[in-house]
């Protein structure tokens, strides 16, 4: 409470206790305290040091020395004594009041009337400081009260208050002098509250520009703060008052196809049995894929020999028509306990999956890649030991396993795993055809060709983004509310659920910023519609082969979303899903190119065995051993073929799209298989160094030992 308010409260307390309508209720001024020590106590240090016992801080003495008559002396003493200020200021206030009353007495009214007017003023407007004596000395109490209310309600500065009250008092004095009664004057004054408001506005206009600017700024800030509070309350009610409603179990949708299979069609039980038979202490996937030149190849050989029956179980599995993995199948509990750390990562049953799909773990996919590495290693062992038929069986198993991996989850990212398995199969054939072609019988070669040709999609990306759509819709139903018409907004429960993705969202931040985020993040329908729009265009545009590649038309929009923080936040569910789509497409195109090339290499070997020499051109192979000429994925023209020193060379034009005679670029074979769009190649921004590094062809067969660079733009 401010000092002034404390002062006013004390005065009002005193007034209500003393019935101040007459001066008689005011206690008289008590006599000054005499005696040495009281004088010392009320003398300022400055006077004491000067050797004077002035007692100038003795309030009673100051008032008594003023000569004010009662009840004014008592009034001044009581008012000053009760004010909540230190002694020097109390004395100063008393002196001001004394001067005030002395000026009032000089005008003529008796002390009692003066005290009554003073108290009327005090009741209406607070402390008397700054008020001209004329107001409280010459006007009837009711008029004083009217003036007091006006200047109080007008919220004026002290100087303005003095000025306005003086002017209004002068007006009333003129009216009284003109013979008008105080009642008439008060009645003709008008509405005091309205007058106060108008005077307040008028006086504001007269105040300094800096004050008005500051006041405007404060008002603006207050308005902003008020709007923010109102907005927060509205958004908070929406944000905290609604909860997501999980209406659809998308995992059950994924399971539906697998659950409809007969036991004979399902490969997963066999894969699972094989994986459960594998020892924990086994070579890593890298060791298995490293081949005979690998550091740990002896351990790999021991491992393969010890687990021959396991591999046979897995090989049997690869012959099945479908994978048939059922998420939540209790039969997987042992497998999940061992490979995912918990039996419940896929829920307690096929119909119940609690976590959202975005956090769905795929331990079975990971372990199927382990089996793929085992088949790859086994094929290399078989090649070394001269068993081409087993190589063929392993390649066949890899292709079958690749088909099964594809059924793990219908999303483009899983296609990257499929491409990885498929690439292993083709590279084994490439290597063995180049290094040990005699290990393959003609029958082996035919079986290999049939297996590769029968591989559905043949490395082409399955351009169905059902999984991505499911991921977005499942995430949406877990973070957004549901208005029943496909729309909704971000909720507190949904935002808290995002913590599992590592988002720093402590509870206090959710409370403070969550409602604002709910207004920023796109709603459920907008998110769904935009995802559908982008994925539809992706599917449509990526059905074209690589040589007709154009930048994904949605890419600019996605880039625009990624470039700005506000847009990223608005569509953050999409950012979790959309990344890597084009990367998967390019990987699949690389797989398709190698797939075509390996079939061509088999056909060349078959032709050589039949005729005793390599064909002068690929046209010689069709249609007897090759149904059609393979296409260069970079140009759309036939794959390039030539004989160098009596050996065949199969190559693609590669990154730079021109024929360099099968010479690899200085940057290596991997550089030549990197995709760059035509516009980029034609661009003047391409440096001489870049062009030189990419000047060359992508040699497909015989394989070259270059670093494998991902197929990307």
């Amino acid at each position, binding site marked *: 409470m401010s000092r002034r308010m404390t002062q006013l409260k004390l005065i009002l307390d005193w007034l209500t206790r003393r019935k101040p309508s007459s001066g008689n209720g005011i206690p008289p001024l008590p006599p000054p305290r005499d005696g040495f020590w009281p004088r010392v106590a009320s003398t300022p240090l400055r006077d004491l040091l000067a050797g004077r016992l002035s007692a100038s801080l003795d309030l009673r003495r100051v008032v008594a020395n003023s000569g004010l008559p009662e009840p004014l002396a008592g009034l001044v003493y009581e008012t000053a004594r009760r004010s909540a200020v230190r002694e020097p200021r109390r004395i100063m206030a008393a002196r001001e009041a004394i001067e005030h009353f002395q000026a009032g007495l000089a005008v003529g009214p008796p002390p009692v009337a003066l005290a009554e007017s003073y108290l009327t003023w005090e009741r209406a407007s607070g402390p008397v400081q700054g008020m001209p004596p*004329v107001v409280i000395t010459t006007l009837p109490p009711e008029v004083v009260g009217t003036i007091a209310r*006006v200047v109080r309600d007008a919220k004026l500065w002290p100087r303005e208050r003095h*000025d*306005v009250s*003086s*002017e*209004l008092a*002068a*007006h009333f*004095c*003129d*009216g009284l*002098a*003109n013979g008008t009664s105080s009642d008439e004057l008060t009645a*003709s*004054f*008008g*509405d*005091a509250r*309205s*007058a106060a408001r*108008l*005077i307040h*506005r*008028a*006086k504001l*206009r*007269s105040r300094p520009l800096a004050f008005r600017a500051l006041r405007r700024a404060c008002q603006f800030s207050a308005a902003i703060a008020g709007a923010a509070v109102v907005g927060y309350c509205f958004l908070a009610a929406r944000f905290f008052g609604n909860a997501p409603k999980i209406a659809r179990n998308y995992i059950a949708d994924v399971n539906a196809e697998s659950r409809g299979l007969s036991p004979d069609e399902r490969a997963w039980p066999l894969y699972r049995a094989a994986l459960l038979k594998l020892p924990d202490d086994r070579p890593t996937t890298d060791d298995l894929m490293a081949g005979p030149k690998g550091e740990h190849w002896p351990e790999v050989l021991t491992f393969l020999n010890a687990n021959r029956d396991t591999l046979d179980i897995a090989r049997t599995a690869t012959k099945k028509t479908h994978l048939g993995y059922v998420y939540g199948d209790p039969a997987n509990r042992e497998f999940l306990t061992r490979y995912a750390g918990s039996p419940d990562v896929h829920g307690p049953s096929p119909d119940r999956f609690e976590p959202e799909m975005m956090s769905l773990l795929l331990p079975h996919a990971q372990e199927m890649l382990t089996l793929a590495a085992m088949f790859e290693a086994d094929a290399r062992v078989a090649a070394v030991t001269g068993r081409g038929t087993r190589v063929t069986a392993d390649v066949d198993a890899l292709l079958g396993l690749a088909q099964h991996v594809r059924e793990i989850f219908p999303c483009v990212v899983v296609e990257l795993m499929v491409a990885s398995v498929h690439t292993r199969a083709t590279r084994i054939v490439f290597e063995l055809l180049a290094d040990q072609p005699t290990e393959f019988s003609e029958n082996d070669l035919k079986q290999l060709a049939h297996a590769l040709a029968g591989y559905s999609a043949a490395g082409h990306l399955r351009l169905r983004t059902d999984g991505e759509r499911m991921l977005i819709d499942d995430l949406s139903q877990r973070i957004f509310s549901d208005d029943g018409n496909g729309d909704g907004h971000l909720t507190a429960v949904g935002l808290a659920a995002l913590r599992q993705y590592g988002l720093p969202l402590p509870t206090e931040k959710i409370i403070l910023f969550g409602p604002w985020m709910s207004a920023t993040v796109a709603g459920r329908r907008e998110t769904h519609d935009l995802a559908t729009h982008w994925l539809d265009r992706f599917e449509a545009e990526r059905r074209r082969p690589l040589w007709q590649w154009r930048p994904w038309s949605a890419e600019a929009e996605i880039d625009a979303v990624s470039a700005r923080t506000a847009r990223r936040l608005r569509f953050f569910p999409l950012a979790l899903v959309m990344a890597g789509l084009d990367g998967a497409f390019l990987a699949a195109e690389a797989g398709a190119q190698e797939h075509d090339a390996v079939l061509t290499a088999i056909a060349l070997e078959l032709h050589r065995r039949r005729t005793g020499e390599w064909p002068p051109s690929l046209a010689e192979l069709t249609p007897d051993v090759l149904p059609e000429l393979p296409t260069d994925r970079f140009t759309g023209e036939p794959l390039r073929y030539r004989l160098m020193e009596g050996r065949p060379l199969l190559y693609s034009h590669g990154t730079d799209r021109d024929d360099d005679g099968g010479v690899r670029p200085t940057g290596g074979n991997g550089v030549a298989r990197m995709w760059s769009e035509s516009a980029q190649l034609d661009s003047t921004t391409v440096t001489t160094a870049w062009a030189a590094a990419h000047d060359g062809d992508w040699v497909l067969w015989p394989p070259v030992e270059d670093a494998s660079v991902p197929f990307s733009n």
Partner: protein
Amino acid sequence: MRVERELMRGAGPVAVLKLLEDGSKYGYELVESLSRRTDGVLAMGQSTLYPLLYNLEAQGLVRPEWQESDSGRQRKYYSLTAKGKRRLADDTKQWHAVVRALTGMGVLPQPAAELSLG
């Protein structure tokens, strides 16, 4: 007869400026003059007059000055500034135009009414 507040809002300032054209006046004198010279039509109480005067002062149209009256009391006298005189001239022209227009429309009787403050 009392005029509507909106009309008074337009007429009040020009009436006060007109009264001050003759020389400086204090509040009570203005109230009395307005009431007397407009037959009470533009009469206004203190609650209206003083805010109006403070507004005119804020706009720099009038200049206040405390002076001692014959009775010995202090009074605040208002006088027109140069800007106030220009504003009065402009406002007078506009009011004449309004009067002519209203006369032309038959709202005011012929001959054209003249402002009675001058």
